[in-house]
């Protein structure tokens, strides 16, 4: 990806150094009713980093992701994204969400809009781009995810893998500083998983800051800079992939990796 969408291309090489983090999460707690889904979670994410979050369902990994752009509100603790405090202030929120792209498990494309309009809508409304500029950017992104020929189709006419690639292009059109992926391949037929992971890989190589919740261990191992293992609302482990998948001491983690690998 070239410099215009790959924010942080130049930062990527420096990301291993202790630069000031792009996202800071401090002592975040969150409950749904009586169930505590996040228990005092603290971590940070650097620019250019690909962090992969894994863990059993219900362990809080999607919830953490969704608190980062306030689709869920945290009960206590503090989250700062690119200098923007994540709170209930509407100006903060709209600014924050414009900088944070999100890709959903169920794609959530707008079914009443063509592929091209799906990608153009937010840049026109939020960035106030004129139609020709928004269209040029959208076409370029669709080209990149391999869907230039489908620009005028509606989402229902595309396969799941194609829809998810449109969803990635739609997020990228806002030129976000960071991309959140919430189980992006979990709703896909097996033969379509690869085309989506390939686009994500390409994005990672271009230096995009990514936080990915997934069960794709191959992707985690190959693309991740960091693996965060969630267990019962806490970050049970935070390690480089070669350590996480290699010399794994923790019995529970070994069991989890084994289960996911068999599935």
């Amino acid at each position, binding site marked *: 990806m070239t410099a215009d969408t790959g924010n942080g291309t130049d930062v990527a090489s420096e990301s291993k150094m202790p630069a000031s983090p792009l996202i800071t999460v401090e002592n975040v707690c969150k409950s749904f009713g009586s169930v505590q889904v996040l228990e005092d979670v603290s971590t940070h994410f650097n620019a250019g980093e690909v962090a992969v979050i894994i863990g059993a369902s219900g362990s809080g990994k999607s919830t953490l992701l969704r608190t980062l*752009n306030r*689709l869920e509100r945290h009960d206590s603790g503090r989250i700062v994204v690119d200098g923007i405090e994540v709170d209930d202030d*509407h100006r903060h929120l*709209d*600014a924050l*969400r*414009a*900088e*944070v*792209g*999100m890709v*959903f498990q*169920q794609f*959530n*494309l*707008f*079914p*009443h809009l063509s592929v091209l309009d799906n990608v153009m*809508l*937010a840049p026109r*409304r*939020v960035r106030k781009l004129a139609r020709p500029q928004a269209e040029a950017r959208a076409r370029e992104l669709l080209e990149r995810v391999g869907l230039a020929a489908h620009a005028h189709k*509606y989402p*229902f006419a595309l396969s799941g893998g194609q829809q998810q690639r449109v*969803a990635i292009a*739609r*997020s990228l059109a*806002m030129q976000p500083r960071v991309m959140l992926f919430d189980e992006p391949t979990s709703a896909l037929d097996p033969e379509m998983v690869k085309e989506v992971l390939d686009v994500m890989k390409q994005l990672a190589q271009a230096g995009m800051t990514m936080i990915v919740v997934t069960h794709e261990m191959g992707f985690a191992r190959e693309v991740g800079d960091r693996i965060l293992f969630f267990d019962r609302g806490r970050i049970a482990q935070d390690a480089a992939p070669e350590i996480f998948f290699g010399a794994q001491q923790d019995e529970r983690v070994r069991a989890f990796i084994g289960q996911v690998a068999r599935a």
Partner: protein
Amino acid sequence: MSMATARFTPWPRGWSRERRSTATMASAVVLMLVVLWGLARALAFAPEPIGSNAQAFADGARVTVELTVVSGLAGVVLGILAGLGKIARVPPLRWLAEFYVWVIRGTPLLIQVFFAYFALPALLPFVKLEEFGWGCVALALNVGAYNAEAIRSGLLAVPKGQVEAARSLGMNRWYTFIDVTLPQAFKIALPPLVNNIVALLKDSSLVSTIGLVELTGAADLLRSKTYLPIPSFVTSASIYLLLTTVLTHFSGAVERRFDIEDKLG
């Protein structure tokens, strides 16, 4: 509502769905204008007592269409507002919307027409309207309450993920509603909305009771003048049928416009 028009596609095969839909809507509007314009001329050839009273029927039909268009449009806006009110998070808004729908749906339209014409001018002395205006107020308030239910269920049927996707792209609440939620809700609400508008066209006959000479009023005047109820009412009923047919044609095209998955065939 697309029963009569579903298979009828007079447009060239190569035309896109949007284009065919636009063409059908345009043709329905043109047809409606032709009906209104040509009715007097066509009815003039009818046997007595219709032939010599053709202009009265044509004028009545025009008033009926005007009542339907004005109160129909106002009723859709009212329906959206009340539908939103019913799912609002602020309790007073919800109460207000629920009270409105409860009162309107629980009382006869004829009472509402009488109330609008005889009571509202006394309650709202600063509002100066004629029979037509008060008739529109009653009809719009009535159809608005029924539309509110349709819109509400449409809004609730839009998946939560749609709003999340729009918000996560940085779109504010207004754009999220206008660009994402409302078009999808409207599509879902369209069949019941169409029913309500067709019902409105027929129910507008009730405003003849406040002295408005629309299609029913015109027929009744002729009946009382000639003592010939059969030709009077058969003629007006036939014109209603013609109008509802054109309206159905139009609304079928609107549904088709939203039918991007081509489910209607």
